């Protein structure tokens, strides 16, 4: 109501601001068109061609897409690997973030230190330095095995060398970087009215009940937004696969984005790379759409 009044008043005093409005957002419109829309359209065109950069692109219709789904066994493998990574890394990271956020709700003298310590890995986690470190930590003579030996477990597992464990080192790296999600949950938790917990306690609700009936429902909008963001970046994970494992062993850690990169820049199959990119856009777009549709089943928005 109040909002509407303000808007009406604004319209009366200012009227339309088409010219200054577009002037202010002009940088975005230009940048978005030149660096996103035009490349996306180019990519759509190239996805229907065979193109190696050196020779002009040759129109081959939907051949790239047919190849992908019928004769490229690696495509299926790569998609499966990436899917598995996302399906484990994203929920684990969110669960960890929520757990630690609840732990840090308590105000103590060390709160500042704790918050910084848990947040730091996600600040530097995306860097090449950490990827290189990770690679050395999980090698056969790496610090993980040595620490296990130091506490008496005789471990000589080549974590990065066998198919069953290699992907898990990458998942652990992703979960390790739960810091920024944790901060988001922390501020979400602080916004839940204390009165809700108080009246629930008076009505005899115990800890788990309060968590599942108050905390979790009140956090669902935050969880929803984080979930979508992390699904998108999870499906596009690249650095881990490229630097830590190079997709080895036997392509068990070859991520989709890395496979796209290989095709375009190492095998000079730009057209095929673009087709791969478009399939991922469609897939992630569809996933986001479906998630938005399921919103009303599980995301709780307070009505004002």
């Amino acid at each position: 109501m109040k909002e509407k009044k303000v808007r009406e008043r604004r319209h009366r005093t200012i009227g339309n601001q088409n010219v200054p409005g577009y002037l202010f957002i002009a940088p975005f419109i230009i940048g978005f068109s030149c660096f996103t829309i035009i490349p996306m359209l180019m990519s759509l065109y190239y996805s229907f061609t065979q193109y190696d950069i050196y020779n002009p692109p040759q129109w081959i219709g939907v051949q790239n897409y047919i190849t992908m789904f019928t004769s490229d066994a690696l495509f299926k493998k790569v998609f499966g690997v990436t899917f598995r990574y996302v399906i484990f890394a994203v929920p684990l990271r969110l669960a960890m973030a929520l757990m630690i956020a609840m732990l840090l709700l308590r105000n103590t003298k060390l709160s500042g230190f704790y918050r910084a310590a848990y947040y730091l890995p996600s600040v530097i986690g995306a860097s090449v330095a950490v990827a290189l470190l990770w690679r050395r930590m999980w090698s056969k003579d790496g610090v993980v095995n040595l620490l296990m030996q130091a506490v008496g477990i005789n471990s000589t597992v080549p974590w990065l060398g066998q198919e069953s464990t290699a992907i898990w080192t990458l998942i652990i790296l992703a979960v390790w970087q739960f810091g920024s999600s944790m901060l988001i949950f922390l501020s979400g938790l602080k916004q839940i009215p204390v009165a809700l917990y108080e009246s629930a306690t008076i009505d005899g609700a115990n800890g788990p009940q309060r968590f599942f009936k108050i905390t979790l429902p009140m956090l669902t909008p935050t969880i929803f937004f984080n979930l979508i963001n992390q699904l998108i970046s999870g499906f596009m994970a690249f650095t881990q696969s490229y630097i830590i494992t190079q997709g080895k062993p036997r392509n068990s850690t070859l991520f989709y984005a890395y496979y796209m990169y290989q095709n375009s820049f190492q095998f000079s199959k730009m057209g095929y790379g673009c087709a791969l990119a478009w399939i991922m856009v469609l897939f992630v777009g569809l996933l986001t759409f479906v998630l938005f549709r399921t919103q009303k089943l599980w995301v709780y928005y307070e009505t004002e």
Partner: protein
Amino acid sequence: MARQKQFEYEGHYVDRTSKYRIKQTVLRVVYHLFTFVLAIVMLYPIIWMVFSSLKPTTEIFKTAAQLILPGQTTFENYVNGFRGFAGTSFSVFFKNSFIISALSTIGAVISSAVVAYGFARMNFKGKGFWFSCMLVAMMLPFQIIMIPQYLLFNTLGWVGTYLPLILPQWFGQGFLIFLNVQFIRGIPYDLDEAAMIDGCSVYGIFLRIIIPLIVPSLVTSAIFSFMWRWDDFMSALIFLNKPITYPVAYALKLFADPSASSDYGAMFAMSTLSLIPIFTIFLTMQRYLVEGIASTGIKG
């Protein structure tokens, strides 16, 4: 008396027996023990890297379970690492990183603030549409557009220069626009109106009223932008081709190349150095980072 009141207030039974106090103390100790140990586990990989960079390179893996080797602390890894690759010293890589990060950040902060003001304060046709475009741009991963962007910049002859890394940042960065829009919306509209009555144009309002008031969100934007650009290695991987132009993030990757001799001491030393700018920003500007993340609800 005061203590008793507090207990009642929190809805507990008044119980001032020593049993209750002991229980509270034990709970507190368990809490701190658990949280502290877990924090150390979280930080351990980084701590390990820093200490390893100070060991003789031959000892790093033999003594990996041990943090400090008494009497063997050395800085030779830093000296060796700093020599860099193929005659290019690491100081060049650091300089490149600073140039790229600084120029990108300046552009991203200015342009994002301008665009954010348009979205937050102007009434114009098609605003909703462009705002959705902005959200799409924010969500769209770079990996999706990197191939066609490469082709585009290749046609323009920009591959091998810093233009593909810096120029796109000068047209507004989705996350930073969003951050500033949120911040500007929190500023009372009365201020704009008062200025308008005094004869100030929308441009004047932006420069004289909004800009001074959104300094905190500009600082937050600058921090995020600088950290992202500093860590960004994908665009360097794709758009740069001469070692002399590489930023630190990409130069570090050369340590991992199969052809490079595996001097892990030097690798850890340079990795540690590469994290120092990020780490310093993190320690001094943590408040801004936390606020930025909390106010937008988006990853950092």
